[in-house]
Each structure stands twice: as C-alpha cells, then as structure tokens.
C-alpha cells in the first residue's frame, strides 16, 4: 500500500471514529442534557460562591470579590471543558469494553493514533460547544467583569492545552487495558488527582509541597494560569507564547510517550488474553 493510500485510509478511519462519537452522543442525548444541566449548575454554584464571599465577610473589597469571581468561574468553566476532553479520551477503551466492541476495534486495520485522535477530536468539538453554552448561561445569570480580558490570548492557550490533554488521556486510556476489572475506576482517580493539584479553584501555593510538585507537572496548571492571565490581567498573546510553547512541548512528549506506552500495554493485553474480558 502506498503512503498516499495509507494516509487516505487513516483519514477515512478517523472520520469513522468521529462519526461514531457523533451518533453515540446523538443517541444518548438525554444523558448529555443531564450532564449539561449538571455542569451549568456546578459552574453557577462556584460563581455564586464567589459572589457570596463579600456577604460572609471573606472578601475585603468589591474589586477583590470580582477578581475572585472571575478566577473561580474560569477554573470551573475550564474544568468542565478539560475534564470532558480528558474523560472521553481516557474512556475510549473503557467504553469499548463496556459495549463489547473492543475486539472489533482492535482488529480493524487502523493506527491506534487514528482511533484515539478520532475520539478526542469529537470530544474537543463537542466540549467547546458545550462550554460555550455554559458560558452563555453564566453571563446571563451572573455579572462577570471581563473588561480586562484578552479573549484571543485565552483562546490560544486553550487551543494549545488540547494537545497535552489528549496525551494525558492516551496515558490514562491504558488503564482498562492493564486491568479490565479496575481500570475504568482508576481513570476517575486520575481525574480527581488532576482536579486537586492543578489549581482549578486555588493557586498552587496553598498546596503542600509534594502536591505542588505534581501540580507543576500537570499541563492543566499552565492552561489555567494562562487563561486566567489573559482574562483577568489582560496578558496578551506575545506574553503568553512561552506558556503556549510549554503546553505544546508537554503535548508532544505526552502523546509520543502515551502511544509508546499504549502499544506496550496492547502487546501485554494480547499476550495475556485480556482484550476479551469485560470484568
């Protein structure tokens, strides 16, 4: 097979995975509505929590409360987006096990990168759409001060963050391959740790030293910092380029490392006969 036809084959397969995700979300639309409402409620709760800081005497000035509100809302909104992207990529294998299609997908003549990228890109597309709708709900219900925001810079950081997030997702997707019984639950544990150490709702400096070290290795930390700088401190694109570069570099390392680790886990699963088991 020539390189051109191989590339066309992978593109067709990529589209297949993207379309399948679309069909699944469409068929499970009730679940999606439920999760959407839950996400809106979560983000709004965090927004109102910040609004209430002044009322409970925790905010020293009105400006401080407004800054806290934007800080927390950005964290909550980004977490809903990033956790969706991370969750869908990391669940790519767990889901195949759940549906019982894992052997057919692994038998198909497509690269694993194509498989995982197809799933991730749909999640990216869907996550952006869902986050935009949540943002609209937030803006309608809570007055958010974004006078100093640089939206282009925030969007650039967010776009760069999708690369390492995909890499992290590939790493975590390995878990159900290693342990059919417990891998799925372990992905939730990893997600919880990321929430704890990545500075979603607080600066890393409030964490114990060991947690701070882990937090500095998380791409989510730099994403949150970068987006907050852009939206709260009006930091421009040029000043955020180092953050973008760091995120992309982390992404390359995580994706390449994730694919290598995934290939090793797949070989092990085939040697031990773990693909078939549903738990």
């Amino acid at each position, binding site marked *: 097979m020539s390189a051109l036809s191989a590339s066309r084959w992978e593109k067709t*397969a990529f589209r*297949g995975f993207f*379309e399948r995700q679309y069909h*699944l979300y469409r*068929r499970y639309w009730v679940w999606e509505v439920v999760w959407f409402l839950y996400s809106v409620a979560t983000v709004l709760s965090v927004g109102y929590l910040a609004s209430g800081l002044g009322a409970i005497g925790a905010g020293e000035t009105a400006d401080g409360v407004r800054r806290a509100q934007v800080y927390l809302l950005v964290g909550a909104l980004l977490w809903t987006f990033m956790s969706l992207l991370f969750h869908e990529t990391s669940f790519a294998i767990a889901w195949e096990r759940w549906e019982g299609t894992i052997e057919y997908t692994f*038998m198909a003549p497509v690269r694993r990168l194509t498989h995982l990228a197809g799933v991730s890109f749909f999640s990216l597309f869907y996550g952006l759409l869902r986050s935009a709708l949540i943002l609209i709900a937030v803006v309608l219900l809570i007055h958010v001060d974004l006078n100093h925001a640089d939206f282009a810079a925030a969007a650039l950081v967010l776009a760069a963050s999708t690369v390492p997030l995909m890499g992290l997702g590939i790493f975590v997707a390995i878990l159900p391959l290693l342990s*059919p019984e417990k891998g799925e639950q372990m992905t939730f544990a990893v997600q919880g740790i990321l929430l704890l150490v990545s500075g979603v709702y607080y600066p890393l400096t409030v964490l114990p030293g060991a947690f701070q070290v882990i937090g500095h290795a998380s791409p989510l930390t730099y994403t949150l910092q970068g987006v907050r700088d852009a939206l709260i401190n009006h930091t421009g694109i040029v000043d955020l380029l180092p953050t973008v570069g760091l995120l992309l570099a982390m992404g390359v390392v995580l994706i390449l490392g994730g694919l290598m680790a995934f290939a090793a886990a797949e070989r092990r699963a085939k040697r*031990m006969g773990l693909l*078939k088991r549903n738990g």
Partner: protein
Amino acid sequence: METLFDTAPAIEIVGVSKSFRKIRGSVIRRRPEVRKLALDDVSLRVQRGEIVGIVGLNGSGKSTLIRILATLTTPDTGTVRIFGRDVVDEAATVRRQINRVSVDAAFAKEMSPWENLSFASRLYGDSAPDRRQRALAALARLGLPRDTVDRPMKQLSRGQQQKVAIARSLLTSPSLLLMDEPTTGLDPRSKREVQAFVRSLHADAGATVLVCTHDLDEAEALCTRVLMLDRGRIVADGSAAQLRAHFGDHPGATLEEVFLRLTGRSFGDDSEDDKIDAEGPFAEVGS
C-alpha cells in the same frame, strides 16, 4: 509479477501453543497461579478458497485459535501466517485481509445497523458514496427487514443482530473470514439463511472461510473440510465423509460418534466448568 504472498496458503500454523494464567486471590493474599493450556502444538494449513470447520467442545481451544488468527491474541510458541504474512510481526497487513464474526454480535447497541455498518466500512478505508446502498443490499440478502435498518440495535432480535454482524464482515470484502459460532442461538430459519449466505460468499468472492462450531450438522453441511479439536490438539482432519470412513466404527457413523470415539467425550457432555472459549481467555489480574 506473482509474489510469494500471492501463492502462499490462506492459513499456515506451525507448532502453535497458547496458555493462559489465572492469578487467584487478592494482592495481599495471593494463591498459587493456575495455568490453562488452550492450544497444544497445533499445526495447520488451509488453502485459499477452502471452507474449513473446526469442531470441539467448550474449552477445546477453538476461539483461542480464531483470536490468534484475528491478531487479538499472540501465541506463546510457533508461527502463524495468513496469506504469507506473520500475524504478530505484520499484523497491520494481515488485518486488511481478514474479518471475523463472533458468537456475540458486538455492536454499539444504541446505534442503528446502518450507523454500525457505516463505522465498520470506514475503518476498512471505504468512503465510497454507495456504501449505504451496498449495506442495504447485503442486509436484504440476509433477510433483515428494511424497517430495522435505522432502528437502534438493541431493538433487534438476536438473529437479526447476528445478520448485521455478518453483513458487517462482508462489507469489508475479507479474503479470509473467521466465524466463531456464527449461528449459535439462532432459530433454524435464521441458521439456514446465514449458512446460505456463507456459501454464496464463498462462491461469489472465493473467500476462504474458517468456521468454529460445536454444531456438527452445520460443519458437515457447510464445510469442505472438518478439523476436530480437543483439549487444544487437532485429533482429526478431513472431509466429513473421510472422517466417517476412517474413524467411524460402523457404516453410517455420524460425526458425533466419530468425535466420541476419538476423544472419549461427547457433545452431550459439553460442560460449563472448564471453558476458556465461551467466556474468553483465562487470564485474570487478581481480584
């Protein structure tokens, strides 16, 4: 120019063994590991265009053999080649030439037959605009009602789902079709429709077909050659007539009687307590 791969047999298995281990107990209190031999020094050659049946009881190693051929499990020892390509070292090339129908028609249950078939055809590089027409034609040939094509798979009967599974494998035009208990659980009519379709696939496309079954009548009706597998070893190989003539102890002996004579076990004794195939491999990572 004709290459080695154009003339190689469809399947060539040499000295393949496979065992699975089961780690028992918990991480804290681990009990001794148990190993289960699924295939024991199996060698086999299938020529292009043959329909070969593999019969055996649950746990005889049939599904393990199919999984190795489908690149889903790697052998512990020995080599397996499909159309001259090694299933471990050249798995990507092998996968383009094979497809598999298993006992469980594995689909995204919320998606419709067409959505599942569309997904499968794209995985095999097919983006032609007439995909839907071809899918509908294949489903119609299998007798699937037209009004089920866009309904969620979970609303279809077991037999209808199995027909979609067969249509899925055919849409990818495999040179080697691996069928693992394709008609188990189907009603007699659906069984006959599936068997007729396999015959027409073989006649029209010249595909090589390997069918694992514990339905001896099906093996006899469908296959030009029958292998009997017991405890991971091939104990007999030939056409149904040859097996009856060579191993039957009386004129008109059935394949089941031949199997009983060769193995000391009958399909009526097929138990659930020693199965590898029916529930998948034996490996387990603690509990």
